[in-house]
């Protein structure tokens, strides 16, 4: 098959014998165009959501769609001031996500330390125990948690959600943090111990600088998962501790002119996740694959 026996240049030819080079730029341009088209198709519903949120209700409900209708803040106004205020649910979501993320980090970082830098015996077993809890379907824990909450009067209490979100994200955080901590070069740890640096100093001046981006990425991913959660929030909260996704479910059976308001609501609730996700973009894969893909 090889035609390069005489000429060592990689001037490969197809079986038909046509030189391959001249054909390549055109097919390359076509593939680039295809990539753009696919990207635009995937982002289109998001763009449509944002565009519709800035249209008037009348312009949002036309067929064919009025793409160039005048922009207005009507949708946002009716979302924030029209009916029940979305601020308490948004604040509840923020509280639950931020506090559970902080607890997750406080528990996960020492645990990951004991699984990577100064590992306990059988550390792989422990690591896989954490992972296995992530694989059990959450719906199976729903009823006992509900009954527990009912008997301890913790229903509609944001702290119950915080505890649940902590358990939901802890395995992911342990796996991610372990993978980031094992990137600390062992030579640096040895050098620090030769220099007589104590634990606190090693943590502060050797480990922290290396893993800080990892901690940030872990925090963002835990925040996203807590912010998105619906099933438990719906069952365990009512009016006081209601979170933003639960608030959004009031749109499920909506009738009449509400599309601009709906899109405004969907965009406002998704905005923190979009910001956090784009911020953690380059670490997103590592987090979602629990640190097994770099």
């Amino acid at each position, binding site marked *: 098959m090889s035609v390069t026996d005489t000429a060592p240049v990689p001037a490969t030819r197809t079986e038909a014998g046509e030189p391959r080079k001249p054909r390549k730029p055109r097919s390359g341009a076509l*593939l680039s165009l295809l990539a753009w088209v*696919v990207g635009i198709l995937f982002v289109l519903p998001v763009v449509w959501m944002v565009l519709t949120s800035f249209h008037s209700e009348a312009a949002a409900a036309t067929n064919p769609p009025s793409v160039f209708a005048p922009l207005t803040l009507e949708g946002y106004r009716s979302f924030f001031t029209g009916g029940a205020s979305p601020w308490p649910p948004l604040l509840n979501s923020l509280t639950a996500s931020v506090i559970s993320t902080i607890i997750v980090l406080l528990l996960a970082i020492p645990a990951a330390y004991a699984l990577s830098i100064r590992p306990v015996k059988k550390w792989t077993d422990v690591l896989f125990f954490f992972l296995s809890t992530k694989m059990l379907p959450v719906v199976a824990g*729903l009823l006992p948690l509900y009954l527990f909450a009912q008997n301890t009067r913790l229903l509609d209490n944001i702290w119950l959600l915080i505890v649940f979100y902590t358990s939901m994200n802890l395995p992911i955080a342990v796996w991610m943090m372990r993978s980031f901590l094992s990137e600390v070069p062992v030579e640096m740890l040895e050098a620090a111990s030769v220099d007589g640096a104590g634990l606190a100093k090693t943590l502060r001046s050797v480990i922290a600088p290396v893993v800080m981006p990892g901690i940030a990425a872990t925090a963002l991913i835990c925040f996203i998962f807590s912010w998105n959660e*619906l099933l438990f929030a719906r*069952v365990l909260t009512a009016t006081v501790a209601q979170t933003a996704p639960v608030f959004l479910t009031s749109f499920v059976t909506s009738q009449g002119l509400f599309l601009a308001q709906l899109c405004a609501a969907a965009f406002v609730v998704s905005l923190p996740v979009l910001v956090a996700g784009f911020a953690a*973009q380059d670490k997103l894969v590592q987090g979602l694959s629990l640190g097994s893909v770099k």
Partner: protein
Amino acid sequence: MTLAVEKPGPGTATPPERPSGARRASAWARRAPLLPALVFMIVVTQLPFVATLVISFMDWNAYYPDEIGFAGFDNFQRVLTDVNMRDAVWTTILLTASVVIISLLLGLGIALLLDRSFRGRGAVRTMMIAPFLVVPVAAALLWKHALYNPEYGLFNGALTWLWGLFGADPPQPDWISSMPLSAIVASLVWQWTPFMMLILLAGLQSRPLDVIEAARIDGATSWQIFTNMTLPHLRQYLELGGLLGSIYVVQNFDAVFTITSGGLGTANLPYAVYQTFYNAHDYGRASAAAVVVVIGTIIIATFALRTVSSLFREESGR
């Protein structure tokens, strides 16, 4: 790299003359940072499952609080012979398999497109990630009302516009009523393709480029390189994406709840459990259904854990 296994960190070398009491103390010092997280996980995740298992053998309906008792395998028998539950099992399998397979294939194609350098590659990658970053309920609402709505949804709007160009009468299907499960699948594929694409793109970029270049110089065609080198290398990334995707999609509640509210034969197991418990208040039967879900998931999870641990070993061996 796992410095911990290959090369024990400083302080690991315990002097042999140390008395056993001190060694035990140092082992506990090592374990101490791990314990809070471990104890927390055992209490919060394992105890509820034990409780679910116990309740699944009980006769317990919140509407009849006086009739709580031991039921034996009755709940399981009712779950496994209930037509709705069997439909839910089938729906769950169909939903999970189609979402995972379609988004894996799409994700593979898009990852291959993005594995080349071209103008605006970063922008396309960012656009591709966006669907994954819309809150799931918001995404489901968006598809239900802004895209699928038969009167003013974007899909039928686009049909009206396209047919209008030719002066014809546009078809205006009612997407959700005419194809409820496909409607849910499409919205989930939209959200999960970016996830698969990201994992597969990471896999593609970890290929040994020199070997591929050598194959190309030896006259291998692009197709030969793809089937004989790229696909085998991607296999474990495909497995990882497929299994992690399955774990998340099998538990999907948001899309089913929002788009069809479990109607039109789209109730999957998580929705059915939710309904039995939230609407029917039949705690015993809901728990039995939950135990069935757990058993099903354990089967998937065993494969998933094996895949992750094989990737993990490979990483450790590096």
